[in-house]
């Protein structure tokens, strides 16, 4: 029986007085590829900032592996986040470090592996994302798609139980985007890693998503939840239908 990796209770996201999301309740189950979707300005990235601990919630709380994250102290938060990997929208690689140094950093800081093993692990992680042999390159010397894959290799460095993705397809061509989607599915199925993906790319949503929530910019709440294919078959409201069919232009997906 699958257990919940992340649960949010009455979560509220706000910048000062400006509320972005309110009354958010959802559960991400183990081994899910959980999609946080919604139109521009619906608060997807803000919600991710809260879930990754970059911003405190304005109300409510959320649990990662059963632990109340906002209430945890700094040391506990660090322990929780060691089991979490994050792939930022532009990769988030440190520009002054080579790809190998970027990936080695979390291993050097949080694992007890000797230097030689870390070097081999870095090579393995790079090979896993199809970047074997690129360890000595700097982020500025590789393409956007390669940066994302290198960012993913760094996110996977510590064998996390959960990986967050912020707009993984943004800025990628369709082939690179599909390749990244396949890689995410492989990681999810092979390692059992739970993936939380913020995206509005419909191809990705239908290709990888096993569960989802839809954030509505007008009501500032979650107005739909469930498997994206199920939501397309039985859209709970017109906004969700419009979103999933590009305003009705993509009806073939429903057939």
């Amino acid at each position: 029986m699958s257990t919940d990796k992340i649960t949010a209770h009455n979560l509220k996201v706000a910048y000062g007085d400006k509320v972005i999301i309110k009354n958010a309740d959802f559960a991400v189950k183990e081994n899910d590829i959980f999609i946080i979707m919604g139109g521009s300005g619906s608060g997807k990235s803000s919600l991710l900032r809260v879930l990754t601990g970059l911003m405190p919630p304005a109300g409510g709380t959320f649990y990662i592996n059963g632990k109340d994250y906002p209430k945890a102290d700094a040391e506990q938060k660090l322990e929780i986040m060691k089991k979490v990997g994050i792939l930022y929208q532009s990769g988030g690689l440190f520009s002054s470090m080579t790809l190998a140094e970027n990936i080695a950093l979390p291993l050097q800081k949080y694992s007890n592996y000797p230097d030689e093993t870390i070097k081999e692990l870095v090579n393995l992680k790079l090979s896993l994302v199809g970047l074997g042999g690129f360890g000595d390159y700097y982020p500025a010397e590789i393409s956007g798609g390669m940066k994302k894959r290198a960012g993913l290799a760094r996110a996977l460095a510590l064998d996390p139980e959960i990986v967050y993705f912020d707009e993984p397809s943004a800025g990628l061509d369709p082939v690179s985007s599909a390749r990244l989607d396949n890689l995410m599915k492989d990681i999810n199925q092979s390692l059992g890693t739970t993936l939380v993906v913020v995206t509005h790319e419909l191809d990705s949503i239908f290709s990888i998503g096993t569960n989802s929530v839809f954030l509505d910019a007008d009501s500032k709440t979650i107005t739909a939840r469930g498997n994206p294919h199920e939501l397309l078959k039985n859209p709970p409201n017109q906004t969700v239908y419009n979103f999933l069919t590009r305003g009705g232009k993509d009806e073939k997906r429903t057939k």
Partner: protein
Amino acid sequence: MPNLDFVINGDVLKVALSGDFLHFAGNPDLYQTAGSTRVKSIIVDGKNIGKWDSSLLLVLFELAQIAKQRQIVLEKDNLPPGLNRMLDLSLAVKPHTDTVLANKSDFLERLGGWGIDIWQIFNKGLDFVLENVGALFRFLKGKTVTRKIDFLFALEDCGPKAVGIVSLISFMVGLILAFVGAIQLKTFGAQIYVASLVTIGMTRIMGAIMAGVIMAGRTGASFAATLGTMQVNEEIDALKTMGIPVADFLILPRLAALVLVMPLLTMLADFMGMLGGGFVGILLLDISAGEYWKYSWEAWDMVNFWVGVFHGFVFGFIIALCGCYYGVNSGRNADGVGVATTRAVVSSIVWMIVATGVITAIFERLGI
């Protein structure tokens, strides 16, 4: 507990894996054995593997690479499906073999390369200066796309916001100048000439240099960082594609503001330096206030004062141009912005010293 056993049976290396492999340290003997010429194939038995992480994947990855290198068979059919798939995935793409080009040229080649680089930098810098001087003329004719608000923001940043730090540092420099001068002058009983020393020193050059160094570190660096970040965010590309000259829109407001403000800051630095000197003279060297100001006034020379202000004006040009030049030519990443900022400050200071030397030589020749 992880359990890794291996045995050579004929020419087959049999590897048996059982238990949980979490943070497994690996086994170098296994790789050595797999690499020996006796072994013609490797069979991995993984049906009793429990939990696993990257450390086990790494063992299999290393074995697979040895097998590939030695062109021998690796059988791994009964591994857990996820582990098998991850191993296949990590072996799917052929490793990239092109190495980053290393600079292995000889000394003469490098020397030539540096010469060409310096010539290109000089040309690029000269083009930049001429472009901005041209923009300044167009600005005076009212033919530039310059926003008044940008100019006012730059003016506020270079002027009122810099008054505090320029005042404080100049006061301290005047104080130090008086102290250092007093040590020598006291031996002749001529400490009263501290007033003349500070007045001439600050008005002729020290006020302008101090204001220049402070503004290079404060405002020049800020120009480079702001424009560098705009380069990273593709704002400068957007301007160029819109056909709006970068010089008009981004550089002119900053250049005009700093050129306008630097002479005023130089005057402020002169005054604060003299005040600092007076503080030492009156309170620590027992010179009466009246006497101190009398000698200061006698040493005051309007020519020195205007020479100092002229230096300030030139320094304003140098700082603004260096900050903006390195900002708009910054690399497109965090490192690039850092390098641009450093270069802006260093080159501002170097060019200020060069300019001081040139101006001093010219004025000396003209008898000023």
